[in-house]
């Protein structure tokens, strides 16, 4: 006697779909204000062009802002760890890609890329680009 397949009727009435019960909207507003504040902060510090520490500071502020969005707006805080793990691993690989490419360029043999190599990377403005021995590549390109 073969038990014919019947799609299982939803045996039990599904409870309210989500575990953490939503009650107030204040956390969202708070996070929003903090984000706006951080944006102002990064613009202020950016405008002063602080030199060496400008980049790390900008990245630090951006990371805190993105963590805020991730944890509160995207509810990463109250959900299972697997989602956080996915984001962590993908950010890790992203940093790995950036890190190794930068290490390559940083530790290259310095005269290997003199800024003004014979047909270097100086800006060739279209109007004065016809003078001198224009590199073959550029001739082909600017047809």
């Amino acid at each position: 006697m073969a038990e014919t397949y019947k799609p299982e009727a939803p045996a039990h009435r599904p409870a309210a779909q989500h575990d953490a019960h939503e009650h107030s909207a204040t956390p969202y507003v708070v996070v929003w204000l903090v984000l706006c504040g951080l944006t102002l902060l990064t613009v202020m510090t950016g405008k002063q062009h602080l030199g060496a520490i400008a980049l790390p500071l900008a990245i630090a502020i951006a990371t805190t802002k993105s963590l805020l969005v991730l944890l509160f707006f995207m509810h990463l805080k109250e959900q299972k760890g697997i989602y956080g793990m996915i984001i962590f691993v993908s950010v890790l690989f992203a940093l790995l890609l950036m890190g190794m490419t930068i290490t390559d360029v940083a530790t290259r043999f310095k005269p290997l890329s003199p800024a003004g190599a014979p047909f270097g990377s100086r800006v060739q403005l279209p109007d004065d680009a016809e003078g001198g021995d224009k590199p073959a590549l550029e001739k082909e390109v600017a047809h």
Partner: protein
Amino acid sequence: MSSAATPAAGHDPHELDGVPEGILAHHYSSLAAQNEAVRLGMWLFLATEILLFAGLFAGYAIYRFQFPEAFAEASRHLDLSLGTLNTFVLITSSFTVAMAIHFARTDRKNLAVACLIFTIACALGFLGIKSIEYMHKFQEGALPGPYYAFKEVTAPGAPMYFTIYFLTTGLHAVHVIIGMSVLIVLTFKTANGRFSSKYYTGLELGGLYWHLVDLVWIFLFPLLYLI
């Protein structure tokens, strides 16, 4: 692409004592398991987006390392006020999307629809501001590669800055457009009562995608505008 990534949610609802209910695909044991699976699928899709932009950030890192003064000089010629305004627009839209989900979960449909419409307006605003900046650059001639004819910045590597600028902001704009179209579809669904406290996963996934678009801009803005 994104509509394919959230397939199971868009079924025609069948009523369950007046409150709309997600349809249970035959191979899932329970609705909760199905929603869990759909959310996991969405987070994996967000991981692919992060790695997509990682490639361009690697390019940015290299060329900023090789041509620091060209990048600094060129970034000073960007319109900082428009950039800052854009950042506020996106953060506010991220906030309103979160509020829309909050309202949907507490069965206040009209507020949710209002928030969604406001978010779409913000998205359009962002794209508008972006196109103003692009027009400005086209006139100035600050264009990538051989089209570069920007008089003020002639340090070596300046065209590289604008190549990176147009590639990153262009790719981000494409994602803003995709996110906006997803939100428009979700607005119509919310309007005809599709989401409720019983079932709002579809809206949540649309919101997750929009938050990601905002996340990318949170990193792009300081790197491009505030060197």
